[in-house]
C-alpha cells in the first residue's frame, strides 16, 4: 500500500512516517505542499493520502481529485462516511485522509488510527516545547530584572528576587510581568539593563 504524507512540518511528517514504518508499511512518501506538489502526487499514484487538516493547500489537492484522470479510481475522504466517531477523532487531531475508493475499511482503519495517535502525540510535543521555550524566556527576563535591582539598589540576588516577588504579589501580577515592566522603565530612564 502506497501512502503519501502531505505536510509542511518536516518533524511531524517524520513522526508519522516512522510510526507507519514501525507498523510494517514501507512504501511511504513525504511531499511538502509547495509548488507543483499536486503533479508529484499524480505521478506517485498513492492509495492513501494523509494531510494536515490545517493545511491551506487542501483545496488545491481536492481540485486535483476532481479534475485528475491520472488517478485511476476516485478518491474519497476518510474511510467510511458513517464512522462519525473516527471522523470526529481525525478532525480533532487535525488529520485529513484521502483514500482510493474500494480499499477495504479494515486495511485503512489502522493507518488512520495510527495517524491520529501520532498527530496527537506531535501536538503534545509541540505544546511541551512551546512551554519550555516560554519558561526559558521568562527566566531570562527575571534574571535581567534581578541584575538591574542588584546594581541600582545594591541588593544581593535573593533580596532582589524577594523584592520582585513581593511586588508581584502585591499587584496580583506574575513575576515575569513585573520584571518586564522594570526592564522597560529602567531603559526609559536611561538606566542599565
Amino acid at each position: 500500500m502506497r501512502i503519501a504524507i502531505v505536510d509542511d512540518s518536516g518533524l511531524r511528517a517524520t513522526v508519522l512516517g516512522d510510526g507507519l514504518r514501525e507498523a510494517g508499511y514501507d512504501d511511504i512518501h513525504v511531499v511538502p505542499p509547495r509548488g507543483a506538489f499536486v503533479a508529484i502526487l499524480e505521478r506517485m499514484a498513492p492509495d492513501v493520502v494523509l494531510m494536515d487538516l490545517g493545511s491551506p493547500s487542501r483545496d488545491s489537492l481536492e481540485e486535483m481529485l476532481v479534475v485528475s484522470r491520472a488517478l485511476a479510481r476516485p478518491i474519497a475522504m476518510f474511510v467510511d462516511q458513517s464512522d462519525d466517531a473516527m471522523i470526529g477523532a481525525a478532525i480533532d487531531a487535525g488529520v485529513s485522509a484521502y483514500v482510493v475508493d474500494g480499499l477495504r475499511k479494515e486495511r485503512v482503519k489502522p493507518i488512520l488510527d495510527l495517524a491520529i495517535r501520532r498527530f496527537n502525540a506531535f501536538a503534545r510535543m509541540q505544546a511541551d516545547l512551546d512551554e519550555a521555550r516560554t519558561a526559558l524566556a521568562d527566566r531570562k527576563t527575571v534574571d535581567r530584572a534581578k541584575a538591574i535591582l542588584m546594581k541600582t539598589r545594591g541588593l544581593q540576588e535573593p533580596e532582589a528576587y524577594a523584592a520582585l516577588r513581593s511586588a508581584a504579589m502585591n499587584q496580583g501580577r506574575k513575576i515575569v510581568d513585573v520584571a518586564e515592566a522594570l526592564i522597560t522603565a529602567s531603559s526609559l530612564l536611561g538606566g542599565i539593563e
Partner: protein
Amino acid sequence: MIPVSVAFLPLTDSAVLIAAREKGFATDAGLALDLVRTTSWATARDRLVYGQVQAAHMLAPLAIAVTLGLGQHPATLAAPFKLNVNGNALAMASDFAAALDPDPAQRLADPVAAAHDFAGAIGLHRRKPVIGIVHRFSSHALMLRYWLASAGVNADRDLSLRVLPPSLMVEALRAGEIDGFIAGEPWSSVAVADGIAEIVAAGSRIWQRGVEKVLAFRADWMEAHPDIVDRLLPALARAAAWCDDAANHDALAALLERPEYVGRSAAELMPALTGRIVLRPGEGPIDVPDFLLFQREAANFPWRSQALWIYSQLVRWGMVKTGPQIERRAADVFRSDVYRRALAGSGLPMPGASMKVEGALSSPMSVGTHKGALTLGPDRFFDGRAFDPNDVTGYLKGLAAISTD
C-alpha cells in the same frame, strides 16, 4: 449564554462574524460566539458537515455544490443569511497588465472592452496564463468565467485555472507560479501594495450586486435549533449594519487586523471597506462605490433567484447535470423563509418576494416590502443580460449563443 461555533476564513468579508463577536451583538442575543479560523474551504466544509461547528462562512456556490453532492462530502446545507455582497477583485502581474488598456481606471470603467483586451493579452502571453482561483465552486471563479466568455474566452480551454487558498496567492504570484488571481479582499490589495500586480477587474463591475459569502448551516441542525438561529441572525444583521457604517471602518479594520482574524495591516484592509481602491502600485486610489456591501439594500437577504443564477453557471460550465429536481434543490439552499422568520421582529425592511429578475435594475429602485422602505441598488451584469429565474433554460440558451470557439 448559548455556545455557537462558526468556522471562517481570514478574509475581509468575514467582518460581520467578527464584529458580532467583538462588538457585543452576539452577547446581547445571549450567544457565546466562538470563531474557528481555518485556512482552506475544504476544512471549513468538513468542520461544518461533521458537526465540529454549527455554522460556517462559506462561498455561496460551495454551499450549493456540497448540497448537490458535487464535492468530497455531500450534505444538505442551508444558507438563510448572506454575509456580504461583492468584495472581490482580479489582480494580474504587472507584465500581463501591461498588455491591457494603459489607464487602469478605464479597465474597470469599461469591462466589455477590458474583457476583449484580456482575450488579446492571452494570445500575446508567452504561454497559457495561469490564474489562481480559490475554489472551483467560488463566486469569483464563476464571475471570471462569465466576464471572459463575453470576449470568446473559454476559461477551461484558454486559461490554466489553478486552485490556491487566498492567503497563498500573493506568494505564488511573486514566485511566478501564477500570472494573476481572483480572490476576496484583502488579497488583491496586498498584491498591489507589494508592487507586483495591478487590479484589472472588480466583481462589482462585472455584476453590480454579486452574490458572495453566505452563512451556511447543516439543514438538519438548523431545523432542530430554530431558537439559536433566531438569536444569531438578528445579531449578525446588527453587526452587518455596524460594519457598513463608514464611521466604524477604522475600528473594523483594527479588529480584522488582529492575527486571530485576518492578520493583515489596516492599510491593506481599508480599500475594500471604503471603496477607495489602489489599482496600480504607487498610484492614488480611485472610487469604486459599492465595492463591498455588508447590510444596506437588504444585502443579507438570500434571494432564491441568486442561488438559481449560481446553478445556471454550474450547468453552463458542465459542473452539474441539469434537471428540474436539481434546480429545485439548488434554489432551496437559499432559505429566505428562515431569514424572514428570524428577522421578523428586527424592524428591518423585508422584501415582499423571494425571487427577482437578476440584473434588471440600472438605477436604484424602491421595491415592495412587508414592512418599511427598501431601495435596491443597480444590479446589472456588465453585458446587460438579465437572469429570469423562471426561465433558466432560456437564459442558458442565450448564453450558449455566445461563441467561445
